[in-house]
C-alpha cells in the first residue's frame, strides 16, 4: 500500500503515464486529422493492429527495426487507401468500411502470424526488435526531470513532437488548412479550386501514418512482440480523445494523456483493493459525461443568445 502510493507520486509513475499514453496520443492525432477532414476514421484500431503486426514480423526477419517501422506504416497506409477508395470513390459509408477494415485487420494479422510462425496467439517464437529508447544528454542527469523525460522510447517523444507538428500542419500549412476547409465546408473548398477528394485522401493517409506509429509503439516499444488483438480498443479510445479534446490537437493530447493516466493508475491501484474494472471504466465515463456536458453547454449558449435578445427588447 505504502509502496504503491510512493510509486504513484514518483517521477517513475509520470514516466509510466507518458509510456502508456503514447499508443493513444498518436492514433488520436490521426483520428483528429481525419475527423477535421470530414472523413471520420473508425479504422484506427485496425490500422494500429496491422502496423503492430507488420512491424514485429518485418523487424524479426530483417533484424532492422526501421524496416519494421516502414512496413507497418506502409500497410496502414494501404488500409487508408482502401478506406478512401471505398468511401470517396465508391461512395460507401465510411463508418461501415472502417468497421470492416477492423475485422479484416484482426483476422488477417492472426492469419499471417500463424502462417509464418505456426502460433495463433502471438509472435513470441520470433525475436523482434524495439524502437530505440533515447537518453537525452544533460536532461538525463537532472534528478527528477531526467527520470521522467529521458530514457523513453523514441516514439514517445515522437508522439509529443507530433502533437506540435499536427497543430502546425492543421493551422499553419496550406494542405492543413485545406484539409480543415474540406472537412467543414466541402462545397466552399471546391469552389476555390481545392480538390476535395485529394485532401480527404491526404487526411486519411496522415491518419493512417499516425495510427501506424501508435501500433508500432505497442509491439515494438511497449512490449516487444505481437499479440492477437493487442490494440485492445485503443483505436476507439483514441477516437473518443478526439471528441473529448474538442477536436483540437492540444485538447486531444490532453484527453489522450488523461486516458493513459487512468490506465496507468489502474495498474498501480491493482495492488490496493480497488477493483480494476472500476478504474478501467474511468476514461469511458469521463467521455460520456463530457459529451453530455458539451452539448448542454452549447444548448445553454444558444438559449442565452435568444434570452439576451428578449431582455434587450424589453
Amino acid at each position, binding site marked *: 500500500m505504502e509502496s504503491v502510493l510512493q510509486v504513484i507520486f514518483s517521477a517513475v509513475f509520470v514516466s509510466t503515464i507518458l509510456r502508456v499514453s503514447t499508443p493513444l496520443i498518436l492514433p488520436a492525432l490521426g483520428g483528429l486529422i481525419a475527423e477535421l477532414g470530414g472523413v471520420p476514421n473508425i479504422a484506427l484500431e485496425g490500422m494500429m493492429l496491422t502496423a503492430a503486426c507488420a512491424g514485429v514480423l518485418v523487424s524479426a526477419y530483417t533484424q532492422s527495426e526501421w524496416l519494421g517501422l516502414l512496413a507497418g506504416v506502409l500497410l496502414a497506409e494501404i488500409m487508408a487507401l482502401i478506406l478512401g477508395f471505398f468511401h470517396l470513390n465508391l461512395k460507401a459509408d465510411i463508418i461501415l468500411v472502417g468497421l470492416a477494415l477492423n475485422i479484416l485487420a484482426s483476422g488477417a494479422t492472426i492469419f499471417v502470424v500463424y502462417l509464418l510462425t505456426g502460433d495463433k496467439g502471438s509472435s513470441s517464437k520470433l525475436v523482434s526488435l524495439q524502437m530505440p529508447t533515447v537518453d537525452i544528454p544533460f536532461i538525463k542527469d537532472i534528478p527528477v526531470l531526467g527520470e521522467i523525460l529521458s530514457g523513453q522510447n523514441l516514439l514517445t517523444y515522437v508522439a509529443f513532437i507530433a502533437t506540435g507538428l499536427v497543430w*502546425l500542419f492543421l493551422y*499553419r*500549412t*496550406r494542405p492543413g*488548412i*485545406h484539409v*480543415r*476547409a474540406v472537412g*467543414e*465546408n466541402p*462545397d*466552399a*473548398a*471546391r*469552389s*476555390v*479550386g*481545392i480538390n476535395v477528394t485529394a485532401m480527404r485522401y491526404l487526411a486519411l493517409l496522415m491518419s493512417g501514418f499516425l495510427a501506424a506509429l501508435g501500433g508500432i509503439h505497442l509491439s515494438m516499444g511497449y512490449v516487444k512482440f505481437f499479440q492477437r488483438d493487442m490494440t485492445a480498443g485503443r483505436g476507439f479510445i483514441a477516437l473518443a480523445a478526439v471528441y473529448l479534446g474538442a477536436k483540437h490537437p492540444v485538447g486531444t493530447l490532453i484527453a489522450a494523456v488523461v486516458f493513459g493516466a487512468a490506465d496507468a493508475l489502474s495498474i498501480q491501484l491493482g495492488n490496493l483493493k480497488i477493483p480494476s474494472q472500476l478504474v478501467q471504466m474511468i476514461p469511458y465515463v469521463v467521455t460520456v459525461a463530457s459529451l453530455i456536458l458539451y452539448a448542454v453547454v452549447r444548448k445553454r449558449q*444558444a438559449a442565452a*443568445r*435568444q434570452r*439576451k*435578445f*428578449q431582455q434587450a*427588447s424589453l
Partner: protein
Amino acid sequence: MIEMRDITKVYPNGVRANREVSFEIKAGEIHALVGENGAGKSTLMKILYGVERPSAGQIYLKGKPVRINTEHEAIALGIGMVFQSFMLVPSFTIAQNVVLGNEPVHGALLDNRAAINATSELAKQYGLVVDPSAIVDSVPVGMRQRVEILKALYRGADVLILDEPTAVLTPQETRELFAAIRQLVKTGKTVIFISHKLREVMEISNRVSVMRDGQMVGTVDTKDATETSLARMMVGREVFQQYDKPPVNRGAAVLQARDLEYVNEAGRQVLRGVSFNAYAGEILGIAGVEGNGQTELVEVLTGLRVAVGGTIKLGDSDITSRSAREVRQAGVAHIPEDRLNNGVALTASIEENLIVDRYSKPPFSRAGFTSLAAMVKNGETMIEQYAIRAPDGALPVGSLSGGNMQKVVVARELSANPQLLIAAQPTRGVDIGATEFMHQQLIQQRTNGVAVLLISADLAEVMALSDRLAVMHNGQIVAIFPDARGLSEEEVGLYMLGVQLQTQAEIEKNW
C-alpha cells in the same frame, strides 16, 4: 470578352436546364441576367465557372475557344463567382477565407500577416469594408457577401459573377454593394449580376439578358428597357394574369398572429413584432424579398420553430410553442418552400409520402397498427384526384418530376381539409401547367372557406392570387393592403424594399 455559344446542359436527372443558350459579355460592363426561378441562370453561370460541364456548346474567351472543366481552370482564366448560397468556411477568419486555396506562404508555413494585409488592401481598394481577423461565423450576412467578392478578387478575377447577391441584403447593404460594384467596373472589371429584382437591374446594369425556361430570350441595353418590358420577356406573356375568382366571402379570423419575435441560433433577430390575421375564405398574400423573415415566419406558425416572443391563435386556441403535430392537428396545412428537403422523402413511396400528417389516425392506423390497404387506396385516390403523373403509388417520390413532386405535397396538404393553408413559394421551379393547377387549387380552397396564407417571392403570383396583401421587410410587416386588386407592382415594390412604410395604425386597421 466572353462568349458562350449554343450551350446546352442536361442534368443527370434529365432536366434540360439550358437549351442552346448563347450569351455574350463585353469587357467593363455590368451585365444583368434575369429570369424566373429555374430558368437556368445559375446553371449557365456554373458552366462558365467550371462547376458544371456543358452537354453541348462552346465558350470563347477573348475570341479563343476555351474549355473550363474545373473551378480551378476558371480561376486561372480570371473568372470568379459568388454563389447564391455562401461558400465560406465558418470557423475560419475572413482573411483565411479570402485567401483560401491560394494562401500566401512563408517557406512551408502560412503567412497569416500577409493574408490579412492582402485582405485589407483589397478591401480598401474596392471599398468593401471587412474585419480581416474576424471569424466568419460571427459576422453579419452583408459582410459575408463582401468576403465572397473579395475572395473572387483576390484570385485575380477580371470577370465577376454575382448570383443573386442582394437576395439576402438590406437596402443599405445593397447600396453599399452597388457602390462597390461601380468601383470594380471603374478599375476595369466586368460584372455579371443575377437578380430577381428588376429595379436593381435597372439601377446597376448596362445590359440585360433574359432567360426563360432554359432558353435565352434576348439581350437588351438597360436604357432601352423598362421593368415591365423585362418582366414580359421573362414570363413570356402579360405579367398580370387574372384568375376568375369569385368575390371574397370573408369569414371569421382563423389565424391571429401577434407580435411574433424570432431570433435564430446565430443570435440574429429575424422576426420583429409580426402581427396579422388570416380570415376564412380569403387569400392573404405575403410579398417580400426573400430572406426578410418569411421562411422563419412560416416555420414559427407551423410549429417547426418556437417564437421568442408573441402569440399565435388558431380560432380560439393558443398554438404558440405547440409542436408541428399539434399545429397540424389544430387544422393547419403547410406547403413548404423547400420541397426537396422538407416536403417529401425522396426514397419513400408516393403512398407513404401522402400520409405523413395522418398516418397515426384512422383509417391509416388503428390502435397503433397501420393499414396498408388504406394507404394504397389513399394513394390511388390522390393520384387520380390531383392528376399526379405516376403510374404506381408504390414508386419512390424521387422518381417524379419536380412539378409532380409538388403535386404530391399539395395533394397531401389540401386533402387534410385544413382551416388554414400556408403555402410557401408553391410554384417555385414548377412548370406553367402545374403552376396554373396550383393556383386554381389555392383559389378553390379559399372559395371553400379555407383561410389561405400565400408566401411568395414571385410578386406577380401574389398579386394575382391575393385578396389581401401584406408586405414583409426586414422581419416586419411594413404594409397590409385590404384589396390587392388595383395595386401596381411598383407600389408594392417600394414597400418590399422598405422605402415606404405604412403607419402602425394603417397596418392594424387591416390586420
